């Protein structure tokens, strides 16, 4: 009796085996990792199923039956066909022929993009922090991935991966980040109106995969803004430069007789005391050899750079820019800039806000060989003017002493280098032998880039773009033509519209139903 019972129980072993195998598969799939536990489950499940098969065949000579043989044949044949079809499809997906039949090649990557992705040296990953996966975006990303397996992408649910969100500093759904090695950058924010763009993606890839780093020196020794965090420091700006692939270092010209040759930009941010004549000479030499300077000079200080700046046609005004346009958040001493010059630094700014606490206006006079562009313009008078009398508590414009707005708070300048004559070799080798011009950005304020202000509004962008432009590293973005569908309309006449509506909603269905009814009637 007991033996029969156990024998019967053996029958149910198959369920245990199947259960274990399924559980193993499920855990493996869910965890997406084939560690010990899923493997152990699958193996034990398979072993139990095998055991069951052996027991079954012993019990009822199951293998000998003809039906089993035929069944096995069918099973083997089916498995073989499945394997063959799987293989064919695998090969087909590997060696697929893709023809984009749309007239404007909507779904084909531009040759520049293909070239760039194929030549990626380091793995690059695109992370899209969004729950919804737009098929168009996905298609684009898959197109990139087909070019090179070093290109990866992943959709991430921000709520499910708080760690990653923290790491990338994600603020909103739809943010797209590029990651390569330990470099990260925000590419764009995708939403219903703004889909992932090939232009941005390719240019972002170009930026993040480039290995060249530009070096930015910060002049020290005259009370300039500190690079490490502290009162009025510009540590955030320095950190942001680091994220943008720049290396930064302080520079003290008292110890050195020249600007280091690896300098792409020299930043002089908010000196409180004047520079020595020798230092100014070093700066002049540096500029004459294709050097680049970013000056941020606060009012009430005199860095004694006037002689240098006059050569470039720049004059630092000693008055204070005031803005009484009635901004509640900022006082009159904080001019707000919403108008920007047509220049690479400010071209994307539109009329967004940047602000400059305690700033001085800058005047430019044309100098042959120097191309000057006004970058930052305050609102016109009577909203802003340059105040000379700072003792008086009553802020008012005094004709003759004060300067009417709009004031220029920042200018960008570039000067072509004279072609070096071979006959007269200069005693010092030029710092940057390939440079053909030197660039300078002068801003009448250094407050805007200090910690706290840096992260607000466009202030950070003003600083970063200025450094980027001045460094002469502004790689020309690849000019990829945006993919646009052909412009086409359907102009239905009312007669056509009527025919369409009538035939599709009335005539066709009625024909179907009428024939059905007649046939049914005849058959009856």
């Amino acid at each position, binding site marked *: 009796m007991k033996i029969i019972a156990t024998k019967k129980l053996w029958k149910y072993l198959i369920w245990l085996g199947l259960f274990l195998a399924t559980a193993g598969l499920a855990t493996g799939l869910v965890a997406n990792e084939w560690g010990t536990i899923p493997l152990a489950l699958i193996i034990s499940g398979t072993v139990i199923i095998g055991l069951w098969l052996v027991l079954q065949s012993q019990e009822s000579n199951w293998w000998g039956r003809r*039906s089993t043989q*035929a069944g096995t044949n069918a099973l083997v044949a089916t498995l073989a066909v499945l394997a063959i079809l799987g293989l064919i499809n695998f090969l*087909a997906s590997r060696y697929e022929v893709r023809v984009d039949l749309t007239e404007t090649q909507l779904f084909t990557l531009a040759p520049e993009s293909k070239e760039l992705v194929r030549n990626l040296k380091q793995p690059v990953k695109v992370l899209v922090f969004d729950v919804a996966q737009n098929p168009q975006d996905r298609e684009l990303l898959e197109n990139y991935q087909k070019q090179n397996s070093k290109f990866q992408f992943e959709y991430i649910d921000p709520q499910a991966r708080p760690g990653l969100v923290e790491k990338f500093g994600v603020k909103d759904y739809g943010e797209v980040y590029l990651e390569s090695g330990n470099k990260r950058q925000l590419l764009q924010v995708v939403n219903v109106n703004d889909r992932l763009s090939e232009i941005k993606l390719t240019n972002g890839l170009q930026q993040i995969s480039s290995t060249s780093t530009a070096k930015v020196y910060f002049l020290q020794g005259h009370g300039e803004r500190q690079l490490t965090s502290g009162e009025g420091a510009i540590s955030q700006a320095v950190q942001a430069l680091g994220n943008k692939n720049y290396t930064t270092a302080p520079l003290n010209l008292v110890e050195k007789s020249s600007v280091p040759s690896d300098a792409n930009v020299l930043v002089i941010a908010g000196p409180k005391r004047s520079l020595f004549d020798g230092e100014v000479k070093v700066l002049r030499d540096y500029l004459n050899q294709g050097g680049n300077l970013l000056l941020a000079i606060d009012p009430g200080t005199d860095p004694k750079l006037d002689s240098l700046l006059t050569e470039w046609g720049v004059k630092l005004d000693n008055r204070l820019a005031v803005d009484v346009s009635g901004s509640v958040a900022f006082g009159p001493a904080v001019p707000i800039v919403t108008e920007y010059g047509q220049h690479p630094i400010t071209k994307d700014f539109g009329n967004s806000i940047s602000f400059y606490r305690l700033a001085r206006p800058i005047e430019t006079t044309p100098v042959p060989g120097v191309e000057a562009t006004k970058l930052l313009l305050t609102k016109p008078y009577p909203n802003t003017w340059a105040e000379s009398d700072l003792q008086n508590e009553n802020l008012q414009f005094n004709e003759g002493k004060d300067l009417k707005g709009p004031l220029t708070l920042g200018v960008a300048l570039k000067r072509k280098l004279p072609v070096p004559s071979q006959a007269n070799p200069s005693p010092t080798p030029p710092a940057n032998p390939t440079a053909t011009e030197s660039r300078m950005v002068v801003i009448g304020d250094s407050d805007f880039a200090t910690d706290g202000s840096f992260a607000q509004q466009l202030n950070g962008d003003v600083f970063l773009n200025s450094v980027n432009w001045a460094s002469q590293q502004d790689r020309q973005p690849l000019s990829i033509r945006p993919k646009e569908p052909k412009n086409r*309309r359907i102009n239905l006449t009312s007669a056509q519209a009527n025919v369409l509506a009538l035939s599709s909603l009335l005539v066709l269905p009625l024909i179907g139903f009428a024939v059905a009814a007649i046939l049914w009637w005849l058959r009856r």
Partner: protein
Amino acid sequence: MGVVLSNIVAIYRRELQSYFVSPLAYAITGIFWFIAGLFFILILMGPDGILAAVAALDTQGQQFGVPVPPIDVPYEFVRAFLDRMGWLLLFVLPILSMGLYAEERKRGTLELLATSPVTNWAVAIGKLLGVVTFFTTMVVPMLALEAIALSASSPAMPPTIPLLGHLALILLAAAILSLGMFISSLTDSTILAAVLTFATILLLLFVDLIAKNISGPIGQALGYLSLLKHYNNLIQGIFDSSSLVLFGSYIVLGIFLTAQSIDALRFQRQ
């Protein structure tokens, strides 16, 4: 070979004839035409239709002097319409395929077929060809309607993309019908066959959604199996050989499995 071919043709003709005298087939066709026509009109001329939306954009652009981004209206229309048709297949095709073998089983004619000298796979091919032909006939009037609409497009639209899209529609239908035929051969209940086919198609359409959440090669392989993904690829104008191979594989698999299942039946009866 010639005998097999003539066998296939014979089965094909018998199938086709049975469709064209069946009131049920015409009733299904009528419903299909009505729903497809409804989609057609709503997408094109409905209050939220593509013509109304683009007209609103154009007038807005004129009023405010903003340039309207280029829109390819006929292309978008064909794509949207074929997309909805893909979903409509989900409901129509199981009804078409449910009776293919289940009806024969119920009426007891399946034994005749199974023991006849015609090979099982020739029968399956003939039946599949018949039902695909019938479905194509259902689609042709819609194609005529589209032709009227597209003829009004300016500038004129080349027919490549609509043609590729409809080829994709027929291929998708053939793949689904082939699997439906296999399911129909398993049971003598037409309703069960229809429900099972519906479930299978739903799974094959949605495997894409599951695959999106699984990364790595397994996810890729699963995503590759998705019928909808390949269909969408084709209707938006990307001719992809792997999509054709996948549709072909589903068709072959359906025919093979049907033949196997009828073979099993032949063996059981002996």
